[in-house]
């Protein structure tokens, strides 16, 4: 497929979609969204651009390969277990800290959020690995 319109559109739409994906990830705890949905969106955004050009080319372009996304995601999930472990609680217990901000109620950060980030990246990696494996040139 070689459509200039699609290629130009994909260039910008990709980033727009990724912004949406990150938004979905961030708001996930209180509103519809979350790591899984965000991950799928971001993954599809990258795939989308890939389709406008050629999936194989995108993979060459991407310095970071799907394996890194998956590994990084799983590592973030692993990290999210550590605080509860060191706090002497049952593993995977959600722990939260509140960071006060000058305006508003402050930001709440917790291990479930880190866990969600891990899911986000793992899902991106899985999506890319699926699609790239299916679209690569056969020799």
């Amino acid at each position, binding site marked *: 497929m070689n459509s200039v319109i699609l290629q130009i559109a994909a260039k910008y739409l990709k980033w727009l979609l990724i912004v949406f994906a990150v938004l979905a990830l961030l708001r996930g705890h209180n509103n519809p969204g979350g790591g899984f*949905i965000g991950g799928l969106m971001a993954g599809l955004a990258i795939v989308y651009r890939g389709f406008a050009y050629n999936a194989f080319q995108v993979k060459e372009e991407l310095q970071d390969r799907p394996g890194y996304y998956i590994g990084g995601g799983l590592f973030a999930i692993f990290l999210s277990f550590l605080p509860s472990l060191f706090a002497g609680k049952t593993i995977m217990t959600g722990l939260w800290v509140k960071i006060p901000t000058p305006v508003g109620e402050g930001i709440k950060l917790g291990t479930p959020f880190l866990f969600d980030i891990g899911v986000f990246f793992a899902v991106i990696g899985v999506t890319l690995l699926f699609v790239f494996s299916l679209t690569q040139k056969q020799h």
Partner: protein
Amino acid sequence: MQYILIVYLIVSFGIFILPGWLKKQKALLLTLVQLGAFIYFATRIPEITSMPSEQIFISWLPRLGLNLEFVLDGLSMVFALLVTGIGTLVFLYAKAYMKSYSGTDKFFFYLMLFSAAMLGLVLSANLIQLFIFWELTSFLSYFLISFYHEKESARKAAFQSLYITGFGGLSMLAGIVLLGSVIDSYALNDWIAGADALRESNLYLPGLLLILVGVLTKSAQFPFHFWLPGAMQAPAPVSSYLHSATMVKAGVFLLARLSPVLGGTPEWVYIISMVGVLTMLTGSYFAITQTDLKGILAYTTINALGVLVLLLGIDTKESIKAAMLFLFIHAFYKATLFMVAGLIEKKTGTRELSKLGGLIKYMPFTFVIALLALLSMAGLPPLLGFLGKELIYEAKVQSPGIASLVLVLGVISNVFMVAVSLFFARKVFLGKSPKYEKLPNERGLAFLIGPAVLALLSLVLGLSPDKLGTAIIKPALFVVSTEAVEVKLKIWHGFNQVFYLSLLTIVLGVGLFWAMLKKKKVLEIWRRVNDVVFSVQLEDVFAWVMDKFVVISKMKTKAVQHGYHRYYILTIFVFTTLLLWFQVFVTRSWDFGIAFSMKPFYISGLAVVIILAAAASTVSRSRIVTIIAMGVAGYGISLIFLYYSAIDLAITQILVETLTMVMFMAILQRLPRFAVLSSKRTRFRDFLIALGFGSVMTVLALKAVNVNLNPSISDFFIANSYDRAFGENVVNVILVDFRALDTLGEVTVLTIAALGVYLLLKTKKSKL
């Protein structure tokens, strides 16, 4: 105490990273570690006289009843002394013996790790933990037997021993779990406290039998004894350490450990004594006709193990006393003899009796050492072996119920032992010496220290056994029979029944020895009789069973794992369908309890569209149409989710649907032209399967609405989502907090699936 184990572990793994100059002396280093441990245990002997001197409890997985528990009491002391003491001497011996071999790093690593495992085993006070150490010793024994791995016979023997002891170990684990379930604990103390409950439980006999299989395989008891002669493929230090002094005694140790818990019942006494008697007789009987030095020693070891098991089976104070003493006696003389056999093999290049003789000229010290050990094995005064034999006879005389049988067979087997010991000494050291390729010598102090120390111990302790009795055997006895018993060992018991039995044994034994030596025919006829009577060898039976096992496994695998993906899916679908329909029929759950109500026209219309799209996807002859039809169905479903305000679900569905479409598009251009390849019948069959599976899923979905196993759970999530997990989106909170473990599982599954796809489609260029 636990630190000793840690030191052993560090030292054994450390062998590989030692600097060069130290590596040359690694055997010496390990010897010193063993010696240190031995001294440590020896200094603690005075503490164990009445009660365990040390009990260590390290919490590990308390909810499963798994903890690290160690105990140093009389019984573990006996074995710890043997493991470290014999270990010291064997490592010193191995320093000389292994000099000319490559791969000694690995050898000493295995051997040291074995010491650690064995020490852990005898110090264990938790049965699961004991099992773990038990299996470790089996594995290390496997590695050590196959040390000469380029020899096929060594590999075969190693596998044989691993299969048998491994099988026994698993069976023992089953027994431990079975009995552990009765009192809901695996701690030894709990077992001892709950001994009465255990003995009265229905599970007592099955549990006992399963544990016994473990004991009998490990300690080479009849009918599993044949792996031990095979294990003689190992280097001499291994034979003397694992296969005579320590590992094969693990079964005996476990019997002694469990005697206060499971012992004292008729089942215990009869089963164990009978097995012991049979093993004792088998060992000594076959020892006579062996021609290989280590073969003789292997069968006499089987005899000794049989004696030990028999004594623990008889289960009287006398018999346990005799067993504890015999443990030492046997370790002393048998480790010595194995080391001597190894030395002889080293120096003459052969282990065949017929090719040896007159070695006294070349190896006088070795002769003296071997003679002491052999006399101890024969049970002649004034060595420790004589004392042991007296005690054993005494125990047999007093054994309840089966005294006459045990006694007669005991005398017969001891006659064999006397004869074989004398025969060994006469054939190897005396008589004419054949032509040796190189003249044997006994250079190498490290070769002789170990055997010499042990042989002298046999002599000195035989002359003054008092200290051994009060300091070591008495506390051990206290542990096994749970009451204080006076132990007075002396060499002269006066003219009593036992003395006459000893006399009879010696006279008959010497007679048999004389017959074997002078009348060459005796042995030949004996062998021929054996060949006829025992034409079916247990090894062969075992090999046959293993062969058939492999054949049947192959057949089964071929039938089940045919490699056709479509048939796997077919099997899964058909099976699931049948199972679920069966359940629906059995429970007569026809009532779905759903009140049908009118929905707005756009929802009912949507449902119709979804159904039509799904139907279209099955009949279309164009792939593009099929994929689009499936997409219509998928997006339609997500709209229905949306109607019911399941926003997260709807978004996910849309995204997954998109991804599916993308992936279909990606592979579409690679597929060959559409063609109808399957016959009408196949298609009809698939239609039926799809219909069955689809309908059962429909039923499930309908049932799921009104089957609510735990109604409180969703209420709980909704109630606690914000207060406890600080999130307003319940779905997300469930995913990342309440049910994070499930999500972790899902992410893992996804990852594995993606890796699977990657590996299936991988080309040379593709990178992960």
